[in-house]
């Protein structure tokens, strides 16, 4: 009986070994996996109605610095590959305005800036996309070292005129779109 048991078991194991096989697998391929999503989000929105601009005497309406740690968060800064920042300005006031958008590092140094001169109403919406990284873009160091964004608005017109458009104001929209390497 024991001999029968042994023969049958051995036979089945051999049969299993004969019919089973595995094609070549290359598990090192996992190292080649590339995960590079592109993330997109708004950054800063600035809005000032014309009546406030008229209240401020002189050239400079305001200059505000915003702590902005999204870019120098380690997870982002270590993985960012390339991307762009898009700005959109709309001026429905009666004044010509000078808007300066600056990227500032922790020491207060201005790393990069974008200047917009917008004419009084009626004016078209001004849109600009600035690229960072890649072959032609500005240095990514600007982005990853930015800890503050400074927005300055200067009034190149007067403090008395009032736009003929309803709800006159200056608005600045901005968004960032960056590709990062997760793997």
């Amino acid at each position: 009986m024991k001999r029968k048991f042994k023969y049958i078991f051995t036979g089945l194991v051999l049969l299993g070994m004969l019919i089973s096989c595995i094609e070549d697998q290359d598990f090192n391929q996992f190292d080649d996996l590339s995960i590079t999503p592109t993330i997109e989000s708004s950054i800063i929105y600035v809005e000032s109605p014309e009546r406030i601009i008229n209240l401020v005497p002189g050239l400079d309406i305001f200059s505000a610095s915003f702590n902005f740690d999204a870019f120098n968060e380690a997870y982002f800064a270590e993985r960012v590959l390339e991307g762009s920042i898009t700005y959109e300005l709309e001026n429905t006031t009666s004044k010509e305005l000078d808007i300066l958008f600056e990227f500032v590092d922790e020491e207060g140094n201005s790393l990069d800036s974008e200047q917009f001169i917008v004419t009084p109403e009626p004016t078209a919406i001004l849109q600009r996309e600035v690229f960072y990284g890649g072959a032609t873009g500005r240095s990514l160091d600007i982005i990853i070292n930015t800890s503050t964004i400074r927005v300055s608005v200067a009034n190149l017109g007067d403090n008395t005129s009032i736009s003929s458009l309803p709800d006159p104001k200056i608005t600045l929209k901005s968004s960032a779109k960056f590709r990062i390497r997760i793997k």
Partner: protein
Amino acid sequence: MSKGKLLLLCFLFGCHFLHAQNKELLYDFTEIPQSLMLNPGMEVNYLWYAGIPTLSGISTQFGTSGVTVHDLFADDGVDFTTKVLDKVIYSMNPNDELSGGFQMEIFNGGFRGTNNPDNFYSFGMYLEGDAIAYWFKDLAILGFEGNADQLNRRFDLSHIKTRGELVNVFHFGINKRVDNKLTIGARAKIYSSLVNFNSTANTGYFVTTEGQNNFLANTLDADLAVRTSGIQELLDGDADETPGIIAKRMLFGGNLGLGLDAGLTYNLNKKTVVTVSVLDLGFIYHTKDIKSYELNGNATVEGIEFILPEVLINPSTDFWQDLVDEIEELVPFEDNDKNYISFRPTKLYGSIRHNFGERIPSRLDCDCMDIITDQNLAFQYVNSAGIQLYAINRPRGPQVALTAFYQRRFGNFLALKTTYTIDKYSFSNVGFGFNIQAGAMNFYAMADNLLAYKNIADTHYASFQLGLNIISWGKK
């Protein structure tokens, strides 16, 4: 990371690649005592049996309803990222899963009642692991592609669905032959959970839309929860203490629960038999070593907003920190140690079997061939064929499998069973099992999805079960 922690993580991760627990080859294989674990109402003709400790019942299954190892890792020269995108990210859907289980009997035995020989009692203890993870398609796409150029696309957070556990089970069952036609049985179970995790009732979405003020608005609407028990102590503790902790939890020191199996066998006529059983109708109440995490709320972000003249009220405000704080307040991520209940993955089996061919001489302590009558129906035949149905309760609803089987017996020494199973994993699942009875020694082994063995790496499903028992039918 210590070896103990690494092993635990490997186990938890490995469970994700194990398959659900259909044991179609073992079910209603009445020569094997472990069939009683699948149907407490099985027809039993032993006087007693004793499983060889830790060897009486070992089973493991693994598989995937989506991608296979070969799909991804075949040495075919195709870029790996392309394969992942084509065969995983875009091809698999939220109902695809990686799931599975294993079971190892620590001890198992059974005996016929002396006062009432129609009753058969069985008892034992086994360790069982079970886990399932559904494919989180939307989150995977979000991870691979990001949210850019995906305006108004809702990434569904309910795609996160997973559960798993490692549980030790003590059981005691009674099997009763009511008459020549009907055998019923039930089994009480006490669960001692070692490890449990589940995240099954998630809802919500992430969407990027056009902003009201700024270009874009990112919205997170989340009601997510992950509940765990038994994990923290293992992760935080000393690796040397792990065996002691596990042993303690196995012996009623874990989170406890109760369960019930029930089943019956009914002979429609002398050659046709139907069986039904329900397994693991039970729950575990988790009160120890609990760590649960919740993310619940709704927030829409358009970046920092600097609107005059409102901001002049407090010009020194840290707008970035305010934004971060606001999001954390609107969508708080919290942990807690609240008790919770987890339900066992209940399984249902049913079968109809037709016996044909010659009758097999009985092993019972009688010359039963002489007393076979039409009323004495519970006899084995050389051949059996039939259909089995299996269903298991899963987080996305029941999973069903349908099996056709043929069983051939060669005297009382050898029995073979082959199955063909259709389920969500495969339409070509052919299984084979055998049972050898060498005197009192009983040995069985069975394997599933044999056609896939021509390239195991390309299989969606593979399993095996084996065991060693001693069986007695009494003195001849």
